[in-house]
């Protein structure tokens, strides 16, 4: 069993107007096999948490710790974090011209596994995973994310989640911009990963609708860079009817 432990995390982001503090002391512990939903209004710091865990260069940790089975994640470079077992499904996956999906997947798998996947089984594994996510076989030869629709990009992120088999997966608003069919396909992929591996999932979302497909064990509500409230799945149900109003005061909405 693995544990990702975040303690008193303070993070600031580099902006054109200078550094801006976003996270103000976040405590969170995730164990293998658990699903934690991080919810909260826009600007509350949810995506900053995802970026800080993965080590995005624009975000600076000013205080606190992130440990993966005791190892200091903040001391690791981005690629070391991935090889240690962290995975981030991005909100805005980046285009990489000239690098085919097939080449990218093989390179990434080789990097995280420390050795090239067996040729004989890898092709089949990729094909099955693509079929499950309703990704056309022709995508294997296309450049990574180039000309992909929003839904195709998100399915490609979940494809990587299923193939790379991380210890912990952070899904940064994977549900945003998806129609109901794509949302179902993507959710099935996450559920398959939860079923087939020991992955712990940090599911960052603004809306409760993805939680109809993926059942969280814990729900944390982010407000102004801190966890304002924590609970079980029933907390998500309450947010479904009440929105974030009670955390923000009069006038705030789910949008």
């Amino acid at each position, binding site marked *: 069993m693995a544990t990702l432990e975040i303690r008193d995390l303070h993070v600031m982001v580099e902006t054109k107007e200078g550094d801006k503090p976003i996270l103000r002391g976040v405590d969170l512990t995730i164990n293998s096999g658990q699903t934690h939903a991080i919810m909260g209004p826009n600007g509350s710091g949810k995506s900053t948490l995802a970026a800080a865990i*993965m080590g995005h260069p624009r975000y600076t940790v000013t205080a606190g710790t992130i440990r993966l089975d005791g190892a200091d994640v903040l001391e690791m470079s981005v690629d070391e974090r991935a090889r240690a077992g962290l995975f981030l499904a991005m909100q805005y996956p980046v285009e990489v011209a000239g690098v085919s999906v097939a080449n990218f997947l093989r*390179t990434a798998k080789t*990097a995280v596994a420390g050795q090239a996947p067996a040729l004989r089984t890898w092709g089949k594994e990729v094909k099955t995973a693509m079929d499950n996510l309703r990704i056309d076989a022709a995508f294997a030869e296309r450049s990574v994310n180039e000309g992909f629709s929003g839904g195709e990009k998100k399915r490609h992120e979940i494809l990587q989640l299923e193939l790379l088999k991380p210890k912990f997966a952070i899904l940064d608003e994977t549900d945003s911009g998806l129609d109901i069919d794509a949302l179902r396909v993507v959710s099935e992929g996450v559920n398959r990963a939860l079923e087939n591996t020991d992955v712990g999932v940090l599911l960052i979302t603004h809306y409760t609708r993805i939680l109809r497909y993926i059942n969280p064990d814990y729900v944390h509500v982010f407000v102004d860079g801190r966890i304002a409230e924590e609970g079980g799945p029933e907390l998500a149900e309450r947010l479904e009817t009440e929105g974030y109003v009670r955390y923000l005061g009069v006038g705030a909405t789910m949008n």
Partner: protein
Amino acid sequence: MTVYSERPAAIPAGSRAERLTSFRPADFPAPTRALEEWRFTPLSRFRPLLDEASFVEPCDSQVTLDLPPGADAAITTGPMAGQAGAPGDRAAVVAWNAAKDTTVLTIAQGQRLAEAATVGVRGGGLDRPCARHLLIRAEAGSSATVVLEYAGPALLSETVEIVVDDGADLTIVTVQDWEAGSVHAASHRAVVGAEARLKHICVTLGGDAVRITPDAEFRGEGGEVEFVGLYFADAGQHLEHRLFVDHNQPRCKSRVTYKGALQGQDAHAVWVGDVLIQAHAEGTDTYELNRNLVLTKGARADSVPNLEIETGEIEGAGHASATGRFDDEQLFYLMSRGVPEDEARRLVVRGFFGELIDQIEVPAVRARLIAAIDGELELTMGVSS
């Protein structure tokens, strides 16, 4: 994030059809940045190659030939009639007049070479300029690959005439991999016969300032020209490629595909692709493309496609030009999948050049090119593999 800006073809200053060609230096005005053909060129660096008077002594540059059976070479002296048109700018006309002899490489009629012929040019140092004239002729029905390899330190001005007779199939691979400090101007002028095919692959890696101007025209119907280019500009390097395909015959085809990567302060790449479809050239099929990949800040790529169409009866005509950036977001994305930084850059650059490298059918050249590109990355990224 990669931003591609498709830019419209600029309207050239005067039609390419009206551009002067001549064997007489006096016909060309002194180059200035105000002239279309020199507007991107750092003239001070090319100065020694623009004046015939600076070519005073016999130069030390050396040519070595490695020819398979079926290819013949001879050195001829004395005046040569131009086989493939007249010079089109000051550098080209100076090269023509300053060269004292001509190396003629001939593939005899009907010969089909199984192996590549290689012409190696070793630069004659940085003290004084050299001029050279190379004529490559593929006679009717022949088939060959000729590799031109440029290395060492050089100030070189050059004419490369390429004659592809009817029904011949010629591939030229020219690799400019000069030492630092080198300056090279080369006018490649090709004529392509009826039902003949020329594939011209131009690879420019080393040298302080390199300016190659490949021109092609047709001598009969059904000819095909493919211009492929690959360049990698480092800090301070100026790599310029100006192409011209003159569709002066009906039912000919041309394809231009040039790709370049740039890195480091003041790395500068220039690509200008002129295509002219003359009024009587019905059934022309042409497409030109230039892509640049900017790897670091401080580098600059100028890319200008010019397509002039004087007849409506064409098969197809198009162009594309785009400059993309390898940025922190791409790097973060690849690294977040466990790929180390140096490998991430290599993956992107190899992917970018991959389709062009695959077209180089000479294994030794292809392998050297991949190694050279990896070497370029290690050079500036301070990464060792």
